[in-house]
Every structure is written in C-alpha cells, then in structure tokens.
C-alpha cells in the first residue's frame, strides 16, 4: 500500500512538474487529459475527504460534490493567485502541486493505511468488458463527428478575396512604407500593383502571381516632398478583370510624417 501511495504521488508530481508549462514538447491534448482530474476533481475530493473523513465510499454523490467543490476551490485559488500577482502557468502549477502534496499528506496521515486507489473500486463505475467496448465505440463516433464538423467549418469559406494594405514601415522611420498583398481568392491569381505619389506613378509591379494564402510584401522608400493633403496610394489590379481597379489603399501625408 505504501508503494501504491508513493507511486501515485511520484506520478502525479512528475506530471504536474512536466506539464506545468515548463515543457512544450508534450502534446497539449495529453497535458489536458492529465490536468483535468488534477484541477476539476482532486481538489474537491480532497476537500471533502478532509471535511468529512468518515465518508469512505465513492458514490455518485461524492463524485458530483468533488467536481463541484473542485470548481469552487479553483475559483478561490484564482483569487489567491491574483492577490499574489501569480496568476500564470507557473502559479497554477505550484497550486496544483500543493494539491497533490495535500493528497500525499491526506493518504499518508489521515487515510490510516487506505491507499488512494482503494477509494475508486473498479466495480463502482460498473465497468466490464462490454462497457469498455461501448465506451470505445462511443468515443470513436463522437470524435469522428467532431472531426467531420471541424472539417466542414474549416472549409466553409464564403468569400474569395484579396487583402491589400499599406502602413508606415515602423514608428521610427518616415521614409518608407510597407505594402502587402495576400491572396485569399481560393485559387492562384495574378496581380498588377502600382504606387502613386501625389497622383504620379512612383513604381509599378506588373504581373506577379500569388498562390492561395500567399503573401507579397514590399518596403518602399517615399520621397520627402509630399505636400500637405496629398497621398501615397497603392492600386491593385487583378488579371481576372484587368481594367477594373480591384483594391486601393493610401496613406495621407499626416500619417507618414508623424510616424
């Protein structure tokens, strides 16, 4: 029994330490599955065990109360972490570790030889071979349903479009602008782009192709004789309708000079 306890604690502490955000290489879904009982069941379970030590068996009521008290105590933990200015992954990691240590203390000193696993007899959940197979089928079907819906949602693109933008290069420079084009036409597209300063052509990029989701970004020096009220303007033409002005953006002198 002592070995069981030690194993439980070692595994739980190890999980918490590994998962508490110091490691990135464990897939988040694995960390999620391991973290869930530690946050959404264990705190309440321990709290109830501490408050009501005479209640030994784990029944439906105990499970529900454990979940409920875990949610409630997690909210209380949050308030404490906020007051300690530690409401981050490290803070939560420490809080969960403390809960696991409380489990160790609880099972060692208050459990009177009862190991943690004995609280959860297999029969209490009615698990047998058929139930496990059923759970597996249900899990596969539900996961399949979610995957199907996710696929449908990800591929539901109502609009085919192209983004064009122009922003000052950075906050320290007033001599350059950044111009960008992103193709979201759901197909490869060809574009012409021209930049005008005070309605005079500064530069032209003819016939560049972008595949779906591809970006085209250029930094462009701007002459410093831009008058008040004038613009640096970018005009984009799509080869599907080459005579029609497809997109346009501009920066007024105010925005360029004050950057």
């Amino acid at each position, binding site marked *: 029994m002592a070995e069981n306890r030690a194993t439980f604690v070692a595994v739980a502490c190890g999980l918490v330490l590994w998962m508490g955000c110091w490691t990135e290489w464990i897939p988040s879904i694995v960390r999620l599955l391991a973290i869930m009982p530690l946050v959404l069941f264990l705190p309440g379970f321990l709290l109830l065990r501490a408050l009501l030590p005479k209640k030994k068996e784990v029944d439906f009521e105990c499970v529900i109360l454990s979940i409920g008290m875990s*949610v409630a105590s997690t*909210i209380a933990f949050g308030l404490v972490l906020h007051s300690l200015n530690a409401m*981050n992954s490290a803070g939560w990691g420490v809080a969960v570790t403390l809960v696991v240590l409380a489990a160790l203390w609880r099972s060692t000193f208050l459990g009177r030889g009862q190991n943690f696993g004995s609280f959860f007899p297999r029969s209490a959940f009615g698990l047998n071979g058929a139930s496990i197979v059923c759970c597996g089928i249900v899990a596969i*079907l*539900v996961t399949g349903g*979610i995957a199907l819906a996710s696929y449908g949602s990800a591929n539901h693109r109502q609009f085919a479009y*192209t983004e064009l933008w122009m922003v000052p290069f950075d906050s320290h420079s007033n001599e350059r602008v950044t111009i960008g084009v992103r193709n979201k036409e759901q197909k490869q597209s060809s574009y012409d782009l021209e930049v005008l300063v005070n309605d005079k052509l500064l530069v032209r990029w003819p016939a560049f192709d972008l595949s779906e989701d591809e970006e085209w970004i250029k930094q462009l020096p701007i002459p410093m004789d831009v008058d008040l009220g004038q613009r640096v303007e970018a005009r984009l033409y799509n080869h599907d309708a080459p005579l029609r002005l497809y997109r346009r953006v501009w920066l007024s002198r*105010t925005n360029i000079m004050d950057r």
Partner: protein
Amino acid sequence: MSNGNARLTHQSADQQFASSIVGATPGSRGRTIRNSRSSIWTIILRVLGVATIDQRADPLVKSSRPIWSQAIAINAAVAVVLSAFAANASRNGHEWAVPGFYLSIALLFFPAVARLVLPDVSRSERIANLTIAALGLFMLRVIREPQFFTGFDEYLHWTTAQNIVERGHLFTPNILLPIGPSFPGLEVVVTAIAQLSGVSIFASAMVCLAVARALFVGALFLIYERVTGSARVAALACVFYMSCSTFVFFDTSFSYESFALPLMTLVLLLDLQTRAAARRALGPLFLALLIALQALSMTHHVTAYALAGILLGYAGLELVSGGPKAVGLPLALAAASAILIPVAWSQAMGNPGTAYLGPVFENALRDVSQFLQFGSSTRKMFTSDDGTVAPLWQRLTTIASVALTCLGLAFGFFRSLSWAGVPFARGLAPKTWSSILAWTNSRLVLLTLLTLLYPVSIIFRFTRSGWEIGNRIGPFAFLGVGVVIAIGVTTFLPQGTRSVWRASGIAVAATVMLLGGIISSEGPRILVPAQYQVSADAASIEPMGINAALWTKEWLGAGNHFAADRINRLLLSTFGRQLVSTTLQHGYDAGKVLVANKLDAEERDVIQKLSIDYLFVDLRLTTGMPVVGAYFDGAAADQMLTAPPQANALLKFNAIDAVSRVFDNGSAIVYDVRGLNGRK
C-alpha cells in the same frame, strides 16, 4: 420534516428516508375527499390532482441492465455524427440541414427518456441514461461551433479570459462587457486549464463547460431525489428541466450563467446535506457551502441573488409551517450567507450591477406594462428582426411545447403540493389556520411555487425589451416546472404499468417539449448557414472578418482604439486585441460616425472624445437589415437607420484629407483617423 402519520412499508433505508422527507403514504393512492358528490367540480379537482396522494417510492430493482445504457450511449453517438452531417449540409446550403439537425436531437433524446419513464429501472441506470442525454446534447453544441466561438456573449467573456492570460491578474476592464471582469469565476477556471495544459482558451472552455454540464445535471438529479425521495421522479424532473429554452445551447455557451447554474445547484445540494447531516459534520459542510457560495458570487450576480431568493423562500416556508425551530441554525446561516456574500462581493467590486441591470429591468417592465395594456411593445412571434419567419413545423412544435408544459403543470401542480404534504391539496379540510400551513416538505412546496414564474417568463418573452429577461427567468422557473411535471407524469404512468405505448407517448411529449424549447431560443438560425447574414452573430462570424481582425493585430499592433459595428467589434477585441468603442462604455455612439452621410463637427467631436484611432468599415452592412435588430448596439445610430446604410455614407472618409485608408479586402476597409482624433 417528519410525518407521524406516515406508514412506512418500504424495503430499503433510502426509501424510508424518502418517505420521512416527503411525508409519503405509500400505497394510499387515489384517496379523495370524502363525501364529495359526482359533480363536474369533483371531476376537475380529480384531474388536477387535488385530494390525490400519489407519493410512491420507487420499486426495488434488484440489478441494473447496462445493455440499455450502452445501446442508448451508442445511439446518442450516432445522433452526434448525424448532427455533424446536418451542420455541414447547412454550410453547403442544403434545405434539409436544419430539420435534419432537429431530427438528430430527437433521435438522441427520445430513447433515453423512454427508458427513464419506465418504473422498473434501477437508479444507476437512470443516472447513466440521464448523463448520456445531458452530455449528448452538450456535444451538439460542440458540433455547432467546433473551431471557434460563435455566440455574441461568448466573445465578451473570451475578451476577459484573454485579459487574464495576458495580464496575469483579474479585473482588467473589458470595454465590451464592463461588468464581466467583476465576476470572473468562469474565466478563472478556463484560463487555469488553458495555462496548465497549453490548449487554447476555446478548447479549455469546451472541456470546462462539459464538466459543468455533468455537474449541473448530476447535482440537479441528487437534489430532486432528496426532495421527492424518488430516483424516477428525479430523473424525469431533469428530463423536463431540459425543455427549458436555455438549457441546450444558451446555458452551455462560454458565458457566466453556464458556470453559475452548476454552482447554484452545488450550493443547494450542500444545503440539503447540512439538513441531513449529523451535528459533527455541520461545521465542515457549512465551510464547504461558504466556499461554493463565494465561488458563485464571483461568477454571476443574478444567479447568486436568485439562489439567495430560493434559500430565503425555503427558510420562510419552514418558518411558516413549523416555526423558528423548523428553520434551524444551518438553514438560517445558509440563507444569511447567500445574501451577504454576493452583496459583499458586489460592494467590493464597486456595485457594477446597478448600472448594468437597472436599465434592462426598467425597459423590460415598461414593455410588459404596455403589453398588458395591449400597447405596441409586442414582439412579432416567430419573426426575426430582418423579417425572416420561422417555418410552420417550427411554429407548431413551439406551440405544442408550451401547451404540453402548461398541461403538465396543470396535471402536476396540486399533485406536487399533495406530495409535499400541503393539507388542502390532500383534500383535508382545514380545521385551524395553522393546519392550512402544516405541510411536511417545504422544499417541494417552494419548487412547486417556482412554477408560477413560468407564465411570467412567457409574458416577458412576448415583449421586445423583456424577451431577454423572460429567457433568463427560465432556468429558475424550470427548477419547479421539471419536478412538477415529473410528479404529474408518474401519476399518468403509475408503478406496475409497463405500457410501452404510454411510456413512448410521454417520451414523445418530452422530446417535443425539448425541441420546442430549443426552437424558441434558436429557431431557424440554429446552424451556421451557407451565406453571410448581416449582424446575425454565428451567421456573421466567418474567416474573412476574422482575418481582417488578425491583420490589425499583426500590422497595427494591439491596443489601438477602433470604432466598428457590433460583429467586427467582437472580432477586433478578441482576434485583433484592439480596444473598441461602445455606447455602454462612454455614452457616445461611435456608430453614428460610421453611418452619417457627412463627417460634420458632431462626428469629429465623437472621434476626438473617444480618441478613436481607426475606423473599421464593413461594406456588407449595406446588404441587409440586421438579423438581431441592431447594426451597432441599439443606440442612436441604429435608431436613425430604417434601411441598410448607404455605401456612400460608409465610404465618406475617402474624401477626408487627414484620413488614410490602410487596409482593403473588398468588404472591410480600415481607415486611420488619428489625424482627426486630436492626439497628434
């Protein structure tokens, strides 16, 4: 709480406990007022259940039959897959999608209910079937929005959660929902899971909401079981609770009510534990109750006050029926704590609820008053604000749902009071004033009286401003509606009756009630449609708008001050991490700047006062009227728009010298107006 006249003939200790609570007299069904004549009045009384005592403990079922639960679980999983096909079909514009989705809900729900209705089902099987039904319905919510939030309120809370993760502390102001950060219980738990596991806030929210749903239904079952002494009635009560319009989708959204309701049932369950606990366990249980109450107070204001009302009502009924001794110290302390803790929390947060809720209740009561005087505030039923009318089958299902609920209440109201030991409902002529009030089960009396909120919620739902309040009353009214109808149903299908037809009939009725509840909340817009719709929440949130919001974060940086319509505000605030202007925050309507025909002094003044940096113009607003009734937030800009805004008005900034046009995707245009906001 005891009844000296009860004849206990039960086999199990549980059933003895049940009888001691409800004052049951097993086997004494059908006892009516003596010397009553065979008149119509007597028949009406008998139909209503006056003078009929129908408390019966559950039959002793020796062993559970897991094969049924397994079959119901697989059926539910198949229904989830079918609902996924329907959701995808809706995105592809197939007309059968919405009926197909509702059909999958029925397929999921019906078998579980049909099994729960039967008398000879074990308690463990009832719990299993109930959990399958509840979590199966939750999965439909995941199927509906599998990748990102689509509900309006969800984005408000997502902003608060993002603020917690980014800032590392609570109470960061949230412009979209100023009251939200003061009640961060939901966001605390969700961000804890997200930060520890590394999953997104969305994924963490789905997990937490599923756990909250299991907690809610499990706690509700245990409460009903303790109050009525019957696992069968408890399971059916949970089933009928599910027909509340908010149960399936609204109360599983990423919003504070979704967490508050499970916490409320947790407190009620703990309160029940304190009443049944030994003296030594009272202190620890009360400590647990205080922790749960504090969590609830940190999660949602209205639910915390509703719980205080329920506990006060219970204490009041105990006081009336049994005097101060019947109330007892634990209940008195619980009721006092349920009032003091939320009030103290609200005071500590600066009492944000008054400004937030005051106008909502004021407008709702004004509209209800006009409605009762046949005024003009009536909502056009089954018609959305853009004029879309719900299909006939949906209208009929909703009407049938309300009719069945009313029928169930009529059938169960007096039977429930009788079950609670109310003398006049048992047909006992009152001899003294105190004998009128000498019921034996105050909790059941309270739950029965809570059903009176149901017609109130219906009246609110008929009005424009009151609709939302009517919707929010539902979860509390249905605490009573569920159990009262369940008691009525057990009368209709008494023990020993193995009629599959009767059981199927009740399961069909429960399924119709569930579908009607969902339709009255979601209607024809239950799924994301193929085509974009203007200001229609889930039908307006799509990748182009999301990418535009993401662009602002990437190329303009976070924290700029934007003015935008109500949908793009959400996207800019969450995906773009920008600050957005709302009338709720400053009292200035930035929407007027966007839709005005000219940029006059008034509009320039708003830009300066709100220190707006960028305007986000969505030309898709010109394509239709807003489905939910507002392009912005219902203030002046919306009131001046009786038709869709003109493109010329939205594009007026093209002609302003000091304005730059920094982004254009053909529909969304971002204007840089820092040259006008006076900060330069």
